[in-house]
């Protein structure tokens, strides 16, 4: 009958707050609050050598830190397993060639390229981590400003790289094809989107789908001890695509609105 405990329908998300550019010493950052889930993502662009098998592309490195503030289970090394799982999921989601234009991150083939270190920090766990993290990663990548470089050749042939001094002279990433993760948790005979902690405790199996704004799936992962019927998997995939598309539209609208406010925007940050 499409009524959950807090009155939402099976495909409704909780109230989400997205804010970008909250950490000043990163190339890009974003903070997402989805109900009680609080995620902070920082992107740092550093120069390095491209990987051997892809000499003309840059790449992304993901690192997830589960802060002990999030839940008591993360005390000490408790959060490492979950952090590794989330990082591996993010690698899979972004493994598709079309997600991020990696060729634009290349400066000199085989010699220099931009490596984007994406650091995810879990501040509070309130259910539905993967969705919130993927929204934050997309917002942070949208906010990332990579300084423009000029490559000049010396007389001897050695290349010199000059970074432009102007802080506004930078390249932005195209995040149109960056996928977002939609988690569908199976509870009883129905599946719900954006489960709270209580709903996650009742759900035996979930499906993690990464969807781009055009509705294409880039990865699929099943988590949980329970089993899923193949028919229900198809249904969940359709729901995931639908919900994912509307999520992308809403997110892009918020990001564009924030962008249009420009430098006069009042930042709420962490003390607001």
């Amino acid at each position: 009958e499409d009524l959950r405990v807090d009155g939402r329908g099976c495909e409704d998300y909780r109230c989400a707050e997205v804010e970008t550019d909250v950490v000043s010493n990163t190339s890009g950052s974003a903070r997402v609050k989805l109900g009680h889930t609080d995620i902070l993502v920082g992107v740092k662009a550093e120069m390095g050598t491209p990987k051997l098998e892809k000499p003309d592309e840059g790449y992304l490195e993901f690192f997830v830190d589960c802060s002990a503030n999030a839940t008591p289970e993360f005390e000490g090394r408790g959060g490492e397993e979950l952090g590794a799982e989330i990082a591996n999921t993010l690698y899979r989601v972004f493994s598709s060639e079309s997600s991020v234009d990696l060729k634009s991150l290349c400066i000199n083939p085989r010699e220099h390229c931009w490596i984007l270190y994406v650091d995810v920090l879990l501040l509070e766990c309130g259910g539905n981590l993967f969705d919130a993290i993927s929204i934050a990663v997309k917002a942070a990548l949208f906010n990332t400003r990579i300084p423009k470089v000029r490559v000049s050749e010396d007389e001897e042939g050695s290349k010199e790289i000059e970074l432009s001094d102007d802080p506004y002279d930078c390249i932005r990433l195209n995040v149109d094809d960056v996928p977002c993760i939609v988690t569908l948790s199976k509870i009883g005979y129905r599946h719900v989107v954006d489960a709270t902690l209580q709903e996650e405790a009742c759900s035996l199996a979930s499906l993690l789908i990464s969807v781009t704004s055009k509705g294409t799936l880039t990865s699929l992962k099943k988590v949980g001890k329970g089993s899923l019927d193949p028919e229900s998997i198809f249904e969940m995939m359709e729901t995931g695509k639908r919900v994912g598309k509307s999520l992308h539209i809403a997110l892009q609208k918020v990001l564009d609105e924030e962008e249009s406010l420009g430098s006069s925007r009042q930042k709420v940050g962490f003390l607001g």
Partner: protein
Amino acid sequence: ILQVQQKRWKVETNSRLDSVLLLSSMNLPGGELRRRSAEDELAMRDYLQEGDLISAEVQSVFSDGAVSLHTRSLKYGKLGQGVLVQVSPSLVKRQKTHFHDLPCGASVILGNNGFIWIYPTPEQKDEEAGGFTTNSEPVPLSDREVISRLRNCIVALVNQKLMLFDTSILYCYEASLPHQIKDILKPEVMEEIVLETRQRLLNLEG
């Protein structure tokens, strides 16, 4: 219920130490009064398992601060279908009765420990079972809507730091009726309905 032990159950009550519910303090099905035998001890798990929710009263407090509970009255016992809301204990008003039947169609138990239980009002008032038979029939949609709305109202009241008692919950419920249930959790709507509730409560006093 956290654990099932030898002659008692360990219960989580949002306190510093786990509370204890002795087998002798539990009312048996049928309401009979007899000495608890070894068979009763072995059948403990049939009555209450880990994860069950109960309503009980504090019988005594041990010297270390642990609380001993009892369910000697027929109104206490295992809870059936409903919604639990956990709030800070300081926001629950201390009153004589904790069980309230709200006119909107649901009943609520306001525990002083901050655990609030919302459930559909049972039709028959005198239940001989004493809380042992749990009704597993699906709750009708109208009742579920009332319960969801009440749950969101309580969350809104807690968010705006208003004391929780039957009147404040009822006024908040009535103030929230023009909004959709899921919209109650939006910050602007929360402020609006709690402000209206506050106004009505002030008018009541003055």
